[in-house]
């Protein structure tokens, strides 16, 4: 049994906006929640490289190839910041990677959808990264110090991802008839999965919101989703495209856009592993990891040999 004093002083720190640092006392559940959330976030960055990596060699110009390469490299870096933040809570990198590869740990379901055309890469940048940014900006103020610092770094880099995506769609939206159609088609396919990224409705939980109380999260799923809809519904006007939702309309009373219901059956199916690309994504990850084993072994063997050769002072 934990002394209530510890619990109380922990909550008092949170309430007065004092960050929690790795060696500070924290409730087990706080540690576990953070490990799960940060590692899933890290896995999302890493798996998120796969649908885009698919297009690096096929991007339509050298400029677009360089941009996409830089973006994918950022995502690898973001995964690393996040894994490092989770490691400060006492879980090892290997354990996290194993949890991803066995399917125990999840990553954002959005990456289980395929990137079928070049316009998908623009739509991913604008909609998927746009949705991720809503969450990430909030997380720069999360209560766990290493997570918050990682998010600050990530947010600085992430804005380029969304802007390049929008700009790429803008070019298509001003192009030929076929390019316009391709642009609209990508938006049609990515819109609903992007909305699902925010997770189930707030009222689906019968419990009080512990993550809010601990300030791991500061905004609810529905709140973030609503902000996202408003942002995108305005931005799409510049593209001259349409969002695939007949119920989407401005609500003067609420000063918000109303929008249609998400297909939650699809959401849970994809989470459970039955999305279009779940199998493919995990297999690509496992293959990369397993085939890289000899490189990791060789590097370590070399380092050991060298350290024997040249004694440190």
């Amino acid at each position, binding site marked *: 049994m934990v002394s209530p004093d510890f*619990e109380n002083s922990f909550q008092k720190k949170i309430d007065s906006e004092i960050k929690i640092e790795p060696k500070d006392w924290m409730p087990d559940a706080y540690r576990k929640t953070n490990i799960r959330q940060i590692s899933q976030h890290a896995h999302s960055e890493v798996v998120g490289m796969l649908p885009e990596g698919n297009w690096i060699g096929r991007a339509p110009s050298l400029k677009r190839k360089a941009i996409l390469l830089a973006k994918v490299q950022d995502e690898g870096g973001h995964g690393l910041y996040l894994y490092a933040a989770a490691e400060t809570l006492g879980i090892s990198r290997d354990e996290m990677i194993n949890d991803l590869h066995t399917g125990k740990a999840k990553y954002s379901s959005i990456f289980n959808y395929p990137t079928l055309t070049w316009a998908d890469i623009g739509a991913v940048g604008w909609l998927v990264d746009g949705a991720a940014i809503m969450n990430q900006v909030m997380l720069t103020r999360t209560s766990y110090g290493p997570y918050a610092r990682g998010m600050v770094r990530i947010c600085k880099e992430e804005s380029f991802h969304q802007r390049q995506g929008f700009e790429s769609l803008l070019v298509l939206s001003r192009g030929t008839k076929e390019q316009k159609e391709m642009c609209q088609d990508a938006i049609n396919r990515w819109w609903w999965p992007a909305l699902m990224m925010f997770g189930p409705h707030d009222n689906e939980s019968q419990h009080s919101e512990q993550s809010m109380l601990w300030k791991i999260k500061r905004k609810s799923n529905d709140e973030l989703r609503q902000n996202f809809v408003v942002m995108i519904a305005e931005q799409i006007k510049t593209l001259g495209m349409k969002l695939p939702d007949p119920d989407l309309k401005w609500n003067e009373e609420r000063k918000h856009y109303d929008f249609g219901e998400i297909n939650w059956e699809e959401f849970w199916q994809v989470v459970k592993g039955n999305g279009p690309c779940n199998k493919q994504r995990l297999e690509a990850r496992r293959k990369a990891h397993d085939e890289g084993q000899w490189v990791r072994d060789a590097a370590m063997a070399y380092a050991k040999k060298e350290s024997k050769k040249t004694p440190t002072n």
Partner: protein
Amino acid sequence: MNTTFIRKFFYGDIPDEKGGESSYEVKQDTTTWPLWEVFIRSKQGLDHKHAGSLHASDAKMAIENARDVYTRRMEGVSIWVVESKYIHATNPEEAGELFEPAEDKIYRHPTFYQLPDEVNKM
């Protein structure tokens, strides 16, 4: 306060039991690369500041990886790396006895001393 873990599905936080099945065999990495702490000097004349950490097999690789991860946008002109196990730190539990004694020694600050206006620029 109630310590039971209260479950709520947040974005980026999918609970374990909602996951699917897998037949992938857990592999134990035989060689885990050690952890390194990275310090970056953002420009000449400034201190190196802690930027983050990474895994690498040796110092050379740690510096190369730090360069790729932490200085892609001109964030640095110099990198230090040190294996994390060599960093010694104070304990949060000792923070009180270590740092609180400084709180009541206001005479260590220049503003403690009231001087006439004509010499107050001192």
